[in-house]
């Protein structure tokens, strides 16, 4: 049986049994989904990559604490989600985002259509940055990752009704920030 055919639980057991190299299987399985989530949360590829690297290294070190090895992907996702929120709450990040906002340059040589789209993306990114980390997470999971409230509740350990309210508040906040209906 090739390593790709092993279940997550079997891979975890091999690693805990001393087969450290088997962790590569989990890295390959989950690095992309973790990276996409981290990028959606922090908005910068380098920061997202740092978070995913920290997540995967920390996941290895704490692997013996994973209660359900068959769902190790969800467990790694929770580590990444927490690191993303910690990153967004860090004071250093607040300073950087102010500098970043003033340093944004748009290439004026491109056609107007691209320019409009670029400006829209920029406005949305800036609006997302102004949401609280929890609101941003809820919006990302629901509307960018297309997850159900049931999945979100399992991933984040919050009730579906609380998450529904968080998503609603995020949309309202974005609506105000973007004034998309004007």
């Amino acid at each position, binding site marked *: 049986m090739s390593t790709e055919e092993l279940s997550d639980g079997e891979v975890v057991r091999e690693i805990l049994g001393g087969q*450290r190299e088997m962790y590569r299987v989990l890295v390959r399985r989950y690095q992309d989904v973790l990276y996409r989530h981290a990028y959606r949360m922090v908005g910068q590829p380098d920061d997202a990559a740092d978070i995913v690297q920290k997540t995967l290294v920390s996941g290895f070190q704490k692997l013996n604490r994973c209660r359900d090895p068959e769902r190790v992907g969800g467990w790694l996702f929770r580590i990444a989600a927490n690191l993303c929120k910690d990153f967004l709450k860090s004071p250093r990040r607040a300073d950087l985002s102010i500098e970043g906002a003033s340093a944004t340059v748009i290439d004026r040589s491109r056609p107007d259509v691209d320019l409009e789209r670029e400006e829209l993306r920029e406005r949305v990114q800036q609006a997302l940055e102004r949401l609280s980390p929890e609101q941003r997470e809820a919006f990302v999971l629901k509307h*960018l990752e297309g997850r159900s409230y049931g999945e979100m509740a399992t991933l984040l350990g919050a009730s579906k009704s609380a998450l529904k309210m968080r998503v609603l508040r995020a949309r309202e906040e974005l609506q105000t920030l973007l004034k998309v209906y004007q």
Partner: protein
Amino acid sequence: MNDELSDYMDGDRELEELSPEARAEAEAWRRLTGELKADEPKQAPPWMENAVMSEIALAEAPRVNVFDWLLRPRELRLSPLASLAMAAAVVALFVMVPNRVPVTPPPGPVAVTQILVEFSLEAPGATTVAVAGDFSGWETNFVLEDADGDGIWTGRVPITPGLHKYMFVIDGTDWVTDPGAQRYADDGFGNRNAVLAVAPPRTL
């Protein structure tokens, strides 16, 4: 935000069921999320896998926590006969198991694997080029060569698996950050070190 739009956004209502005003707003939201998704990367950077594997090669291995495993609640169904047999087995364990003294294996030499890494830098006009990093104690012992005089300096350096910081040193005095590095890290003095991830030999 009105209720019908909220219901649509939560997946509880179809677009066709919305009023024209709510439908226009729904389309605006769809465009907005579509733009965000169109702009995002789909995959982790290619260096991620080796960077993680290099880092965990040096990390302490996770071990199964026996007490955690024993204390974890689990459902166990036994027939009355099986319960009696298990109780007898537990008693027998306490009676029969001799005292054991843990034995620590004697310390022995630890094999350190080194991987040969090739460095190259385009530096036409340079007289000497060396690479210095944490693997050399930041000494400029590893000198690169430009045998054919094309301005591209290369050299191979044995390095242990893990994450390493390095810089090139041109003509013995100019410390230059590798423009083609996998990653970079601030050195704390206003400059950037290049960061190299060296993976352990693959056995998978």
